[in-house]
């Protein structure tokens, strides 16, 4: 199983010190947070995508490529990449490039984005977000699998003889997660293509996405990718850890009370009881996280939200020490011990290369000489017809 952290990239005033970090400070901090994630033995670091203040992450592949260069084992990912307002052609190009530079230590999670004003800035409208997401991904899926694509859809300008470059590393498209908590169409698309499905698991009642994950598993099996238990599921969650529970409650409370999204709302204790949030000792966080598989089945990736709501860098790094040293090793052992033998392994580049090629040769596309376009003649690559 893979464990990691995901960041929304919010730049929030620290309610204790009263200070708001600058964009420069927060961007420096996120790189340190990602490096720390690797240092403490986490598997994945993922960043969100936003195009408005107070968020900094508008260019996730630039950030992730930098982080990949500074780390050795960490998988870099997104939470989420906007499949609605981004051109799928640019997603294909940018993430293939990231895949090469990170030597396959990457994947991405697609989401629709729920900030209405962002859509028109990119020539779209939020009411079309679902068909837009579905159509864009249908195109993205082909761009990474076909050297030359002819395509026509409802939203984007048509493509004739288009080749997305570079081709994916080892001609193996990046692994894709589809994030959703209440949209059956997104679960269906993930199942149809045999991709991963991710529920952010921040809000309960969880029954909605419990059923949606079950639907995804059924459809994954229906489309012949494997059994229901072999479907690839990821979950989010959030935690604040201290050696003593009371310290955790005291330290996190001011941040909880003013957190974006749910701050100024429910009492922290009620929110802990009613949602996946754990605030407490390492053992309390372990116990709560272990309940997730009882609700959702065995799954491949557990992500934690740890750097939001104005928590200062020092506290976040300390959280990562506790997460990496005291929580994740126990979770890894316990989860894997309880796992059904049928459960799929989490997606990694090496594992997927093995699945695709076995011991056979791995395709390395080499382009033909420049002839000015892709439209005339055959394949732009030497090894294909």
């Amino acid at each position: 199983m893979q464990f990691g952290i995901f960041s929304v990239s919010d730049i929030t005033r620290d309610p204790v010190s009263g200070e708001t970090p600058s964009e420069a400070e927060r961007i420096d901090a996120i790189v340190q947070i990602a490096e720390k994630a690797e240092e403490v033995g986490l598997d994945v670091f993922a960043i969100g995508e936003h195009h408005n203040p107070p968020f900094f992450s508008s260019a996730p592949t630039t950030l992730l490529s930098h982080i990949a260069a500074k780390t050795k084992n960490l998988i870099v990912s997104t939470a989420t990449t906007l499949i609605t307002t981004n051109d799928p052609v640019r997603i294909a190009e940018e993430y293939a490039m990231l895949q090469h530079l990170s030597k396959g230590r990457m994947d991405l999670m697609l989401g629709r984005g729920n900030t209405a004003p962002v859509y028109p800035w990119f020539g779209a409208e939020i009411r079309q977000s679902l068909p837009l997401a579905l159509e864009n991904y249908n195109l993205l899926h082909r761009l990474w699998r076909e050297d030359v694509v002819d395509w026509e859809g409802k939203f984007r300008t048509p493509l004739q003889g288009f080749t997305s470059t570079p081709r994916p590393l080892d001609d193996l498209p990046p692994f894709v997660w589809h994030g959703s908590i209440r949209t059956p169409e997104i679960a269906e698309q993930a199942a149809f293509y045999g991709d991963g499905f991710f529920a952010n698991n921040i809000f309960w009642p969880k029954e909605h996405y419990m059923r949606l994950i079950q639907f995804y598993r059924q459809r994954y099996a229906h489309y012949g990718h494997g059994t229901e238990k072999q479907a690839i599921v990821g979950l989010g969650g959030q935690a604040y850890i201290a050696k003593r529970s009371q310290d955790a409650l005291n330290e996190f409370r001011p941040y909880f009370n003013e957190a974006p999204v749910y701050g100024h709302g429910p009492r922290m204790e009620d929110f802990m009881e009613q949602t996946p949030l754990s605030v407490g000792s390492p053992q309390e966080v372990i116990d709560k996280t272990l309940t997730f598989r009882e609700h959702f089945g065995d799954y491949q990736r557990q992500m934690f939200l740890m750097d939001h709501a104005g928590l200062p860098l020092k506290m976040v790094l300390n959280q990562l020490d506790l997460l990496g040293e005291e929580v994740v090793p126990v979770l890894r052992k316990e989860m894997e011990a309880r796992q059904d033998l049928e459960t799929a392994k989490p997606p990694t580049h090496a594992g997927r290369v093995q699945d695709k090629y076995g011991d056979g040769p791995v395709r390395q596309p080499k382009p033909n000489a420049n002839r000015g376009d892709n439209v005339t003649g055959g394949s732009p690559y030497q090894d294909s017809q």
Partner: protein
Amino acid sequence: MGQNFQLVVVSAGTSDPSSTRLLADRVAGRVTTLAGKRAQTVGTTVIELRELATEIANALVSNHIGPKLQKAIATLRHADGIVASTPVYKAGASGLFTSFFQILDNDLLIAKPAVLAATAGTARHALVVDDQMRGLFAYLRTVVVPTALFASTEDWQDNGLNKRIDRAALELVALMTSGFEKTVRDESWGSYQHEYGSAGGTELTIDLDSDLMRLAAGGA
């Protein structure tokens, strides 16, 4: 044959006892009596919004539906008839009352019969029920009985209020008895707008043949 109806009273009254709750209780009492004459039984559940005030506010600002609110939603889902009663503040229904109904899924109350009632300190607020509250309940696709109930302080001494309560109660019994809600829901539920998990978490139909589902599966 004796039918059994679930009547749900929603009261936004704030004192205890409150005239808002009292008005709703009088309706519920008359509904029970009138139904009894037709060999029907009525079980009444009361939702006091005062007790849900914090969770209502939380739900409005954070989308987080607390446990008391979930229970109230489940109660309303099973209602055969609703009596919704609110005090009037500043020429409008109490914000607590409208906030509660604004949180509900759009399809939770489809075709349910409802009596609307309001109380106020002055008769000048008399049209709040017909002018303002009906619109909210029309949006929710409920069937509001023709008689609107309104009681200002002087109405409590006037037998006219009792007559209007009788009228509204009978109208509600007639609508519940007609099976209107069941017919609409059995035969036409799919023609209203729903989201996955709406209707209080019970709308879980997935239509694999929709255009969007075909697009999800590669668009073929």
